[in-house]
Structure formats: structure tokens, C-alpha cells
């Protein structure tokens, strides 16, 4: 296995395009090395992107935030403006593994690993995050929900590299939240999860909302019906029950070692309700 650590994006793309065998990108490595170890993959080339320029930066601009693909999750929580703007996204990133994993794992890697249970993805989806993709065809921006096409598969082509995740500035009076269910208090993969972002209008009525669920389908799913269930409400019990019902209806999970169809479906609704309540509370407090 060859290991390369290019210092320009062009070089990285060329390496990926030029490899005849199996080539993989290494960002945090917390999934890649586990898959190598388990012999699920046997790379001929690993391209480490951590030494590319701007990979390690979180940049704030007028339009929002750009999080480099090499930024470890732990760095998100240390960025105060980001925590204030997107607490749900930061919390989701904080849930990816232990402190040790946090020191290496990245949200770009979490996205590109294409697990339906990826913690950061529902939060990014409801935050309308975009992935910056650089490849042989140049640079483009894609909504994060357009990256993953199924368990372990993405829409990215050979040589395409996600170099950053971009988040907009949150609208006024908005809030986001992410919750997942795991059997232990730490160290597990989500059995199911829910991300909610919402914006309030006059009298704290929900004006806009996005609800996404994780680990209940082949990919993270955005559930517009669930969002509609709370738009125009102040999250009264009835609205929350309708939100949960819409979420349950959107679930098509599998039975596996981590959970059952019935369990995932029911708890996804519970988490969506709870996440919505947190997001609502955050939105109310925010000017």
C-alpha cells in the first residue's frame, strides 16, 4: 500500500485519478483504518489530505462558515462563533466517538463514509450545509444530502475530493438540535437519530422547519411532512405528536445488531420530538 501526503489539491486530485487500483482519501482515518483492519477494504493508495492548504481551518465569512475537510471534530466545539450559530451541528459532531476519536474524525469524513447512521449528517442536512467538491471537473458545491446515495456509496466521482463543509449563517430567531439514541452513554453508533432546525415568526410560531432522520433508511432522510407538522404551531403537544407520526411514517429501517425496525421507527419519532423542543427553545432565546 502506497501512502501519499500531497501539499496541493491539484496534486491530490491527480494522485487519486492516476491510481489504477483502489485509492482512498485519508482525512481523520477513524473509519478508513477500521475498514482496513477489518479487511473490508484493501487500498493500493491512501492519500492523506490533512497537509493540503486550508484543510485545518474553520473560516468565518459574511455568508457563513467553511469547515476544512481536515478539521477534527473537537475543533468545532472550540470555535465559539460556530457553537453560537449552529449548536446542533456542533453537538452532532461532538457525538462522533470518544475524545480520542474526536481528535481525529472530521465531519467531511463522516459524510463521505456514507453511513446511514453518521451523526453529523442529519444536523448538516437541516442546517442546509453544502459540501465543496474539487475534482478533475473543477470545483462545485453540493447540498450534503446529495452526496450520499446509499450505505457506503456516494455521488462523488473518481478524484473528487470534499475539501470543506460550508454552513450558512443561521436566520434570525432560528435554532437547531440533534439527538441520537445509543444503548450506552458513549461510544456507540446511532441506533436512530434526528436533526431539527427551525425558524420562528411572530408570536414564536414556527415559520420554517427542516427535520432529518438518521439510521432509519438507506441514507439520512429529510422529512418535509414532519416539518410541515410543526410549521404554523408553537410546538403544542398535538403538533409534536404529528411530527413524531410523520417521522415514523418516513422510516424504512432494517433489523440488525444495533436495533429492530419497530424500535428504530418508534424512537426516531421520540427523538424528533425532543430535538424539535430543544431547537424551539434555542430559537426563542435567539434574537
Amino acid at each position, binding site marked *: 500500500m502506497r501512502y501519499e501526503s500531497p501539499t496541493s489539491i491539484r496534486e491530490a486530485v491527480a494522485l487519486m485519478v492516476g491510481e489504477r487500483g483502489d485509492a482512498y482519501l485519508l482525512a481523520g482515518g477513524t473509519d478508513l483504518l477500521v475498514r482496513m483492519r*477489518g479487511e473490508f477494504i484493501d487500498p493500493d493508495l491512501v492519500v492523506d489530505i490533512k497537509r493540503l492548504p486550508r484543510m485545518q481551518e474553520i473560516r468565518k465569512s459574511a455568508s457563513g462558515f467553511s469547515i476544512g475537510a481536515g478539521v477534527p471534530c473537537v475543533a468545532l466545539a472550540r470555535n465559539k462563533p460556530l457553537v453560537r450559530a449552529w449548536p446542533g451541528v456542533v453537538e452532532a459532531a461532538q457525538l462522533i466517538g470518544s475524545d480520542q476519536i474526536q481528535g481525529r474524525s472530521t465531519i467531511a469524513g463522516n459524510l463521505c463514509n456514507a453511513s446511514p447512521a453518521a451523526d453529523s449528517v442529519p444536523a448538516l442536512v437541516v442546517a442546509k450545509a453544502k459540501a465543496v467538491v474539487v475534482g478533475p471537473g473543477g470545483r462545485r458545491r453540493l447540498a450534503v444530502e446529495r452526496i450520499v446515495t446509499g450505505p457506503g456509496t456516494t455521488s462523488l466521482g473518481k478524484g473528487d475530493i470534499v475539501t470543506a463543509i460550508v454552513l450558512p449563517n443561521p436566520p434570525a430567531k432560528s435554532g437547531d438540535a440533534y439527538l441520537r*439514541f445509543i*444503548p*450506552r*452513554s*458513549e*461510544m*456507540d*453508533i446511532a*441506533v436512530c437519530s434526528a436533526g431539527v432546525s427551525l425558524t420562528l415568526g411572530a408570536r414564536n410560531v414556527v415559520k420554517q422547519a427542516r427535520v432529518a432522520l438518521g439510521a432509519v433508511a438507506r441514507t439520512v432522510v429529510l422529512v418535509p411532512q414532519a416539518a410541515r407538522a410543526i410549521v404554523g404551531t408553537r410546538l403544542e403537544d398535538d403538533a409534536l405528536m404529528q411530527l413524531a407520526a410523520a417521522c415514523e411514517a418516513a422510516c424504512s429501517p432494517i433489523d*440488525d*445488531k*444495533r*436495533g*429492530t425496525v*419497530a*424500535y428504530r421507527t*418508534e*424512537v426516531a419519532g*421520540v427523538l424528533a420530538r425532543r430535538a424539535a423542543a430543544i431547537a424551539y427553545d434555542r430559537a426563542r432565546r435567539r434574537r
Partner: protein
Amino acid sequence: MTHDSKFTNQKFNLVGTRVKRPDGVDKVTGRARYGADTFAPGQLVGAILRSPHAHAKIRRIDTRRAEKLKGVKAVITSADLPDLTDGDDELYDILENCMARGRALYDGHAVAAVAALDAETAREALQLIKVDYKALPHVTDVDEAMKPGAPIIQPRVRTKDKPGKPTNIAGVATYGHGDIDAGFEQAEVIIEKSYKTEQVHQGYIEPHACLASVGPDGQGELWVTTQGPFAYRNTCATLLGMEMSQLKVTSSEIGGGFGGKTHVWAEPVALALSRKANRPVKLVMSREDVFRASGPASSTSINVKLGATRDGRIIAADAVLRYSDGAFPGIWGEIGAMAAWACYDIENVRSVGYDVIVNRPKVAAYRAPSAPMAAFAIESTVTLMAEELGIDPVEFRLRNAAREGTRASYGPTYGPIGLVPTLEAVKNHPHMRARLGKNQGRGVACGFWFNFGGQTCADLTIGADGTVTLSVGTVDVGGARASLSLIAAEELGIPYEQVRCNIADTASLGHNDMTDGSRGTFSSGMAAIFAARDAIEQLRARAAKAWDIDVQNVSWKNGRAMAKGKRKSLTLRELAEASANTGGPVSGHSQVVPDGAGVSFASHICDVEVDPETGATKVVRYTVVQDAGKAVHPDYVEGQFQGGAAQGIGWALNEEYVYGEDGRLQNAGFLDYRIPVCSDLPFIDTQILEIPNPNHPYGIRGVGETSIVPPLAAVASAVSDAAGVRMTHVPMSPPRILAAIKSSRDRQALAG
């Protein structure tokens, strides 16, 4: 408290103090050497190819391409481990478990092995070995394996009728006394309940690892993480056709065992690779290997029937316990049947244990093996009965508890035992009066373990400066060197710091049984006492010689020889310095078979909080009360209590082997085999009771195992109290709890 008071007033100077362990600095600085931490010149890396099938015939293994790969120095199959077991079935099973012989019996069964220059080459070589399997029907569930028509795994196992038919039931054992039918006739309340527990693993953090070296002269050395270097030596030497004295086994520091390192797994393979390559071979299991191919504990299926009178007396008790043994016959069901009713004084009692062969890895001991599952079923039912009768569960247990003179359900009549004192302590514990919050519940349960002694010897040598080396043959799994040094220093009357305890290799001390059955401090402690006394005899004789008086007139006190009429005493150091001229070095020795380990009891209290919407359970408070006989080093006694409780909590809530329809293990890793993490647990309060064991000079009882017995039931009763549903399937994972809550609601809705 009613117990033998013979030793209660024994005064100790050192025993019972919390000294620092002698191996501590090495362990906090990273210097301590465990199984994988040693290196030999020219060593190769060993690796094992494992069966991907739960049950298969192995038609052919083609190793030619692997042998030709550059850097590969040896490739072996079962052909390189000929059968030398001489008709000993148990030994043959160990041999076959180490390396499949024409058939693979579980997912992960070793099929071939290689030794190569490095890990990368070894990995490639494994990929080049081609095995032609014919998959056979498999069965992994204990109840399914007992059904007529289930795939037969061990054709040599037959039913008892003549002519015997092949069966997966390796044994049936019945224990108990009285007249069960008459007992249930008299019972005013009868409760019947069925339970299931899933397979769990000891989960020691250090995988199995060894460094093996065998030369063409038939001499060999094995550095290995083990609970029993002598047992490993004997087994490996026999399987390899070596003379026992020619194989020196050195136990490394051990990174946890809990019973899982009482059995050889890959060690004979490492030795065979080394012999073939004529070079040292290091073989380290991956975590996946550990889960798939070392010995987990049984999964079980248990039925309990309990009969009591309205005034709270259990008068009839019956249990049928089915334990999976893995792919080879075991005695785990029988032990479960023996332990089942041990906490109670019951006139009419029976337990029937079934040992069942399934296509899973060979079961090994796990801390009080077989007792926790039985206790889960029985203690849960006992609590149900108390609730049914409207009697406090602790009070109900006290009314029925075994005590001195009780005929134990497994046969013998108890001597002085500590169950009632642990229950009294629970009754009076502040934990029992603490208020419970919303969605919280409390459970109480008892536990029992046999404990045993076993073959033990110790050497105690006195250096020229009067300091002492104590050599023992029981592996130190968690602080025993400190405890044993305390004991030797106590007996000699010298400071703790002047004794250094050392774990001997098999060439340096006589045979010692393994560190199992909670015997380490009990047995080696006894051997240390007698070895010290042996040395004291010699020291007195040396002093007598120096003073030219009769040895009868010399006494030993506070680390020195004294005699009437002698103003000056002789210190250990002075006697040691003079030893060259008084008869040579002084060393004490003892060998004992310290039976009478003294059975052990514990009672636990558990508080949990259950999220009724997700079924998630959080243990919010936990208390362990256990009889230690005499706590030699209280820190490590507490540590045993806490560690066992934590393992039991993990077993109760989240740990389980998950097998697919294909008979393959789906969660062979710490990600999905969920042992408790730090944030899952509260502080675990402990209360040590000291009810001296009359069979030990210091009153010591084994303390290591009992603490894992009560938690399954304690947690289950707490969950039941919090969520209003009785859980009968362990682990009580969130999906199982939520499903139970929902079906209980449905039932109530129907009833309402």
C-alpha cells in the same frame, strides 16, 4: 451476627492496611510487560486462518501458495498437531478447538496458521491458503439445539438409552432434596417463570498473546498471558508431545482474564509454528479473534417454579437450566444447577442442569461461571414471590436464607456462612432508605459462589540483608502481590517493604493450579504463611546455634529471635548476615492443598432510571455488600466487588453475542459488544463484611467472583420497579425494555 468467633479477635499489624502494590510503578509508567510486550531475536509473526462457517466439513486445505510466499517460514494445519491425547476426550476437544480437524465447528474456528517475517506477509499468506469447505446445517440457539432433528455437532455424544442416539445434550445433572411434588402440593402460592440470557464474553482488555520458542532439541519456552502457567505448560506439552520439564512457561503480566485465560487457545498453535520454523513465534489475537474464538460464557434458557406459604416460607423450588457449552461438551449447566438454589434453605428443592452443544466457541469459565444466569432467574422469581405475598424482598430473603446448618441444595450442609449478615447489612444500609425519583426503581438480589483452593506452593527466601523474596505460582490478576507480601510480612513480623513477591515461572517452583475459583490470595496466602513459618523455624534454630542454647528456648517475635535470659535479640538481618556460617541460606517452603475455601455470599442493591419512551436504562446508584472473611488489602477487595458488579451490570443491560441466520457472529468488537464505559456507571459503594473462614489461618475467603452473581437480578428487579414490567430476557437492552413496556401497556389497555 452468628458465626464462628474463633478468629474474630485476631489482631493484625499489616493485614488489612492499604499499602501500595509492588508492581505499581511499572504499570503507571508503561514498563510492565504483558503478553504482547516481549520480543525475541529473530522472532516471527504468527497468524491464524479461521472458519467463516458455523459448521462445515473441511474437504481440503491447500497451503502451497502460502508456503511459497517470500518471508513465510512455516504453515501448519491440524496435520502438524497429531493426536497425542491417548483417548482423553477432554484433551482431544482442546486439541480440536485449537485447530480444526476435518470439520469446522463454529464461526472463527482455527483452520490453519502461518509464521512469517512480519505481520503484512503473514496476512498475505493467510489470503493465499485455500480451504475447501462443505457447509453443514448449524444451530446456535440452546433451545433449538435440544430439539429432535437439530443438526448434530459432536457425533460421539450419545443419549443415555441403549443404543444411544447422537444428541447435542452432553449431560443432565439433577441436584436437590426433599419431595418436590409434595412441596408444591402444600404451597399456597406458586409462581412459574421462564428466562433467557444471552452469551457474554469476559471482555478482558488484553487479547490472548504469547511468544513461543521450540528448538529441535525438544526444549521450549512460552511467554504468555495466562491465569495458570503450570496448566498451560501441562496442556501444551502434552499436545505437542514434549516433556513437561522441557517446556518453561512464564506468565507475563496479565491484562485481565476473569476465567478466559484458564484455557489454552492459540498457544499450542504458536508452539507448533515455532517448532516447524525453528524460530521464536509471536502470536497475538486480534479483538475479533478474541470474541470469535476464545471462550465466552454460556447462553441459557431457564424455567423456575417456586412455591411458598402465605406467611412467607418457600417450601418448594424447582428449576430447569439449559446452558450452551459451545461446540464441545462442558459442565456449565451442571454448575448452574449446583449454584441455583444455594442461597436458600428449602425443604423440597430440585435443579436440573442441561449441558447443550451448539455451533459457538467453546465456553470457558467467566467469574463464578454459570452462577449469574441461574441467580438472574431465581432471584427474579424470589422477588416476584415476595411482591405476590406482600412481603419486603429483603425480609422475604431473610426468612428463607441459608445459614449454618442449612442443607445446601447442591448437597453439603453449610458451616458458618455470611448470607444473613449481608442481608442484614442491606436492610440497614442508607441506600435502602434513599428516595427514588421519577422513573426510578430499586432492586435487591443475593449471590453465591463456591470458591475453592487447589494445589499451591510457595518459596520464601531470605537474602543476605534480611529482606525477603516470596515466590508464588498463582498469577497476580489484580494486586495479589501486595496482599501476599502483607501476609508474609505479617507472619515474619517485618515491614511490608522488606518483602518482595514474585510470580514464579514453571521452572522455578512446583506445580500451582491456576488463579481461578477466587483462590489466589486464599491459597497462596496460606502457602505464604506456612512458608514463613518454615523459615521462622530455621531462623530460630540459627539463633539457638548462635546462642548455643536449645531451640525450644528461642521464640520469634516482631521480626527477631528472642530467648529468656538473652538481653539482646537477633534481628532477621543479623541472622541472615550470619547465615553463611550457620548452615547456609535460609529459605522456607510450603506446599498445600487448601481445601475448605469457604463459600461466599453477597447481596447487592441497585437503583436505575428507565426512560419510558426509549427503554434506555441508567444505573444511578449501586451498593455491594459481601463477606470477605478477612480483607487482606481492602482496596483490592473493594476493587473486586466493584469490578464484578460492573461486569454484571454490563451483562444485565447491553452485552450479548449476536449471531446471524448464517451462524456467524455479528458483533465481534468492542463497538457493538457493549461493555460498560466510564460514563455508564455511578460510583459503586461497597461494604466489606469480615466473617472469618475457619479453614484459613487468617480467616480469608476468596472474594473475586461472587460480585458478578447478583447484578443481573438486582438490575432486573430495579427495572421492573421503575418501568412496571418484569424483564425475563437478559440483556435488558433498550429495544427489549421498550417492547416489554409497550406490551404491558397493551395488556393493561385490554384489561381496562
